[in-house]
């Protein structure tokens, strides 16, 4: 070690580590204790109530509804996004492989990738406000306006319990697909052209080529993408808070409620900070469970090529 390195290490780490401990580590650490108090945030005293918040959680119907909605999102968003992403990436990537005998991109492939990717760089809040209007219950909304042209009566997408949550999930899939199209086209372009050529000479159909050649070779990327999407699907806060009825209530009648939004409402509308933090701990457990399950499921079997 060189002269003065100790001084350098200390001076380099001091500010970031202190800021990080005060603003990130300490809130996380405190939250476990706060979740075992009856703190309402207004009075300075907080009474230790043990696991009372957690027993209340187990009996709380809204909590279970929110949890169920989170679980639905964790399944539907990755499956929907990956299916569409793989489909469009294949279309762009191997669309002309028969006609040209190679894996050239389809004409205009660059345009499609640029267009598809764009929603990914917009903020979820902006997209939420936009789609709240797209889903407007009157024919002045974009979707009901288009349905009106086809002679279908307007649907109250976000106001009807049976459609509200599906409408919100569709928006997340809509904005996510583009990123995965770009990701999958670039990992497909790493597959040597000779393999597609060989499959073509063997007379493999496009369908067979996709299932037996392309998909196994990019399976690693698909798995990582699924875990990414699943972790993001555990959030859902911004989109539900912006799009759900009556200014982020998670309504109608908790039909779109998710844990993040329930936590936010419990803390900052009802001032039940102790109970809200218990919801946060439940969300952490769900995250850890998801991470554990996905680690178990995604075995690393890399195919060399």
């Amino acid at each position: 070690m060189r002269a003065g390195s100790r001084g350098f290490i200390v001076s380099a780490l001091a500010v970031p580590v202190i800021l990080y401990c005060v603003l990130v580590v300490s809130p996380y650490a405190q939250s476990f204790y706060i979740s075992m108090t009856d703190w309402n945030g207004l009075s300075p005293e907080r009474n230790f109530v043990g696991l009372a918040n957690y027993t209340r959680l187990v009996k709380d119907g809204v909590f279970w509804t929110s949890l169920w909605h989170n679980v639905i999102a964790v399944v539907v968003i990755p499956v929907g996004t990956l299916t569409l992403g793989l489909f469009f990436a294949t279309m762009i990537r191997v669309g002309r492989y028969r006609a040209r005998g190679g894996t050239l991109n389809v004409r205009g492939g660059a345009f499609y990738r640029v267009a598809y990717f764009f929603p990914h760089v917009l903020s979820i809040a902006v997209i939420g406000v936009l789609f709240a209007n797209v889903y407007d219950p009157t024919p002045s909304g974009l979707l009901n306006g288009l349905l009106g042209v086809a002679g279908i009566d307007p649907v109250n997408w976000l106001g009807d319990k049976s459609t509200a949550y599906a409408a919100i999930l569709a928006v997340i899939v809509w904005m996510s697909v583009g990123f995965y199209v770009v990701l999958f086209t670039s990992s497909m372009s790493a597959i040597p052209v000779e393999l597609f050529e060989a499959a073509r000479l063997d007379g493999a159909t496009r369908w067979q080529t996709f299932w037996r050649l392309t998909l196994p070779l990019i399976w690693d990327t698909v798995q990582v993408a699924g875990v990414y999407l699943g972790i993001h699907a555990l959030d859902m806060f911004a989109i539900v808070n912006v799009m759900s009825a009556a200014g982020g209530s998670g309504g109608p009648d908790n039909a779109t409620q998710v844990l993040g939004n329930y936590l936010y409402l419990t803390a900052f509308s009802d001032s039940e900070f102790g109970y809200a933090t218990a919801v946060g701990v439940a969300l952490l457990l769900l995250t850890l469970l998801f991470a554990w399950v996905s680690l178990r499921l995604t075995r690393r079997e890399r195919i060399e090529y």
Partner: protein
Amino acid sequence: MSLNAPSAPAVDERNPLPRDTPGDLKRPAAGPASDRTLRGTVLNVFTHGILLTWAAMVVLPLAWAVLSSFKTSDEVLANPWSLPATPRWENFVEAWTTAEIGRYFVNTAVVVTLGSALTLSMGALVAYVIARYSFRGNRAVYYLFVLGMTFPTFLAIVPLFFIARGLGLADSLIGLAIIYSVYSLPFAVFFLTAYFRTLPAALAEAAFIDGCGHWGTFLRIMLPVARPGLVSVGIFVVLGQWNQYLLPLILQSSPDNYVLTQGLANLAVSQGYAGNWSALFAGLTISILPVLVVYLSFQRQIQAGMVAGALK
């Protein structure tokens, strides 16, 4: 067409290529050239049809918002696709000034610029020290930061709200930038540590021999060399902070300090009640267009940077 062909025949598990393809084998080889071209054309039309449909589904809502931003509120309510009688540029003035989108926009620019600059400078410093210096507690510091990536921010917001108020960081633009930067830090440290490890150790050695101090080596040699890594991480950090919604929602209580995301969401609720649709759509357009311009100018770098990050 081959898309409707019967499903694949038996395949060796370890070898993903089909071993025998009875029937299929002859078709492409035996078909005359003109037949193949025709099939290629049909396929192309089909492919483009599907790809264009999704492109339309992406572009239509955005184009509709831009179109609506030029209409009067009555025109917005009349028909989603009618053109405005006269394009109302004053909608944008109204959104920018009366609806305060301008203020939110400037606030966001200030917070994100400061926040991502802080993230990158602290992240690079911490990552460099972790990657290049061996000292007791090196691993502990690394895992302290990396663990922060696995915890959901929701768990922290209640205590954070009170800590930030106590330190005077709540409801302040600089405070928000500092809080953004520490919450982006785990990601930056994780990726930049990996990046600094890939840089040759001989570089720093040479700098030391030439008489550079520790800070000089870091600032004048290692940082410029690490530029590609910093750009990649920077794109993620800027986008993440620009899009942040949860933290400003709990921390920025006075409308003067709102950032764009929460200001727009707030506008959507209040203008909805007031029936002022034209200002809302103008506000939406103001939030979308600058991002579109930046995106179109840098889309190659943005896509490459984000995809490289995801593949690591």
